[in-house]
C-alpha cells in the first residue's frame, strides 16, 4: 500500500507538551518539514529560547542549543560565525524576542547575521501564565493588565517585523498567520524562503507567526482563531515587509 502521508523526519517521536489549540505544534511541523524537504536536517543547528518552547530541542531532530531568555540571536551569531556552512535558526516567542531580547534581535538583524529567526507572536506570555507581552493589544486583558492594556501606563504594542525591516542587514521579513489551510501553506513557503535566504548567504531573515494561546486568552481553540483573525491582524498586518522581490 502506498504511503500517502507520514510524520516528517524533522521531528522526533516525543509527543508535544503544548496546550490544546496552541499553534507551536503546527509551526514546529512546518519548520521540520521544510528542513526535511531541503535536506538540511543533518547540517542545521537550532536555538531554543525561554518560554513554552524552551525544550523544543526534544522535538526537532537536528542539533539544538537551549539559550538564555532573549539571547538566542546572540547564541545563533556565535554558532553561525564559527560554523558558517551550517544552517542556524532561532525559535523565539514575543516575550523572549520583543521584550527581554530586543537588543539581541535588533543587532543580529543590523549585522545581517546569516541566520533565520522564527518569531511566534501570540500577544501574551504563555509559560508564566498569561502576563502582558510587548505585543499585547491595547485593551487586551492579561494577568498583569487586568483592566485591559492601556497606552497611558503600559505603552503600545511593538510591531517587530515593521521595526526590523528598517534595518539594512535584515533582507527578508514576513509576517504570516496560521488560522486556515491557505495561510498555513503560505507560512511554510515563508519558512522555506527564510532558509533559502540563509543558504544564499544574503543576510538576516525572519518569519513572524501570528499565533494563538487559548489557555491564557481564556478562549476555546476555534474562538481563539477568530480572535487572532479579527483582533491581531488589524494591529499586525500580514505580508512581506522586506525582500518581496528577492529571488532565492
Amino acid at each position: 500500500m502506498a504511503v500517502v502521508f507520514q510524520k516528517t523526519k524533522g521531528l522526533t517521536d516525543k509527543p508535544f507538551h503544548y496546550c490544546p489549540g496552541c499553534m507551536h505544534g503546527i509551526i514546529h511541523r512546518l519548520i521540520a518539514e521544510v528542513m526535511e524537504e531541503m535536506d538540511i536536517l543533518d547540517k542545521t543547528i537550532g536555538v531554543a529560547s525561554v518560554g513554552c518552547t524552551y525544550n523544543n530541542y526534544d522535538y526537532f531532530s537536528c542539533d539544538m542549543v537551549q539559550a538564555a531568555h532573549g539571547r538566542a540571536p546572540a547564541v545563533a551569531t556565535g554558532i553561525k560565525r564559527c560554523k558558517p556552512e551550517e544552517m542556524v535558526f532561532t525559535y523565539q516567542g514575543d516575550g523572549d524576542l520583543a521584550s527581554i531580547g530586543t537588543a539581541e534581535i535588533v543587532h543580529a538583524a543590523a549585522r545581517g547575521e546569516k541566520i533565520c529567526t522564527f518569531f511566534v507572536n501570540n500577544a501574551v506570555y504563555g509559560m508564566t501564565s498569561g502576563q502582558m507581552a510587548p505585543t499585547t493589544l491595547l485593551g487586551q486583558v492579561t494577568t498583569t493588565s487586568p483592566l485591559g492594556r492601556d497606552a497611558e501606563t503600559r505603552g503600545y504594542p511593538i510591531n517587530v517585523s515593521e521595526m526590523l525591516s528598517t534595518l539594512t542587514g535584515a533582507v527578508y521579513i514576513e509576517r504570516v498567520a496560521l488560522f486556515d489551510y491557505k495561510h498555513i501553506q503560505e507560512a511554510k513557503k515563508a519558512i522555506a524562503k527564510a532558509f533559502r535566504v540563509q543558504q544564499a548567504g544574503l543576510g538576516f531573515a525572519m518569519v513572524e507567526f501570528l499565533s494563538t494561546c487559548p489557555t491564557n486568552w481564556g478562549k476555546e481553540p476555534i474562538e481563539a482563531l477568530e480572535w487572532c483573525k479579527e483582533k491581531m491582524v488589524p494591529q499586525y498586518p500580514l505580508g512581506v515587509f522586506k525582500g518581496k522581490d528577492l529571488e532565492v
Partner: protein
Amino acid sequence: MAEVVLMKGNEAIAESAIRSGCLYYFGYPITPQTEIAAYMAKTMPKRGGVFLQAESEIAAINMVYGVAGSGKRVMTSSSSPGISLKQEGISYLAGSELPALIVNVQRGGPGLGGIQPSQSDYFQATKGGGHGDYRNLVIAPASVQELYELTVKSFDLADKYRMVCMILGDGTIGQMMEPVAFKEKEDTVEIAKPWATTGMHGREKHNTITSIYIDPDDLEAKNRELQEKYREIEEKEVMFESSNLEDAEIVIAAYGTCSRICKNVIRQAAELGIKVGMVRPITLWPFPSKEFARVADMPSVKGFLDVELSSGQMIEDVRLAVNGKKPVYFHGRMGGNLPTQKEILDEIVKIHKGEM
C-alpha cells in the same frame, strides 16, 4: 628558539589565546582591558579567526556560549562592571558544562566605580558569581609572562573539565609592559568534543546543549555531577607559589599585583631582621587551602598578613584554611589605590613587635 617580545599584559593574553587555538573572540569595550579587543580586531582576521564587537557584554557572553557549544575554543574579556553583566551567561555555561575563557581585568567598584586596578571581584569570581551552585576555575597571574603561559593552560583546563576558566587580573597586570618569551609552538592539544552541536552530519542522535532540568531529581543529579567534578579539581588543579618559608615568622598571603609589591617588602623586612615568607595563590579557585594549613602548622610562623586591593575578600579563604591556628591580619587598599611597600612593611613591624 624562543621569541622575546615587549608586550602589555592585555596584549599577551590576546596573543596567547590565538596561539592556543582560540579563533573566536567576542567583547564589548571597557577600560582597562580594551587592548585585548583591539589586538583581536587587528590580529584575528590575519590568523583566520573571528573578532566581533558585540552590542553588549550580555550578547558577547551568549555568542561565546554559541561557539563553545559548537566545540570551538572561544573567549571574551571585560572589566568588573562588564563581568557583572556576563554573570547570567556564565551561570548558563556552568549549567551546560561548556568550556570558555573569560578574562576579568578588574577595576574598582561597586557600581561604575573607577578605572584603576582593584581585586574587589574576588568573591564574585571564586564563589560562583551568577545564580546556582557552581564554580569557575579562577587563575591569577602576577606577570606578563605568566599571563601568556597561564592563558594557554586555561584553555586546556576549560576543555578538560568542560567549564569556564577565568583569568582574574587587574588594571596593573593588564596595562604593564614586560618582556614575554614565546615558545615556538604551544604545548596544548584540543580534545575531542563528541557532545558539541556541530550539525549531525550522519551522527545517529542529535546533540543538545542545555542547562534546564525540570525534574527535581534530574537537576539534583546534575548538581551532584558538577560537585563531583569540582571536588576532583580541588584535588588536582591547585597552583600556588610559596617563597621564603624557611624559618618564616610572618607569612604574607597575596596574589597578582599585590604579590609583586610584597616581594620587595620581604627583602626590606629581612634587612630589619624579620623573616617574612609568602604564599601566593595562583589558582584562587581551587584555593591552596592545604598549603596555608601546612604553613599554619609551622612552629616558626607567628601569624599571617593578607594583602589585597579590596576590603578583605581572599582573607576569608585564608582564615578558613588557617582555621584559627595563627592570627591572620589584613592590609588592603581600595578604590584603585595600591599599598606602598612602606605601608606593608609598617604592618609587618607591628605584627613582629606584637602591637597588632
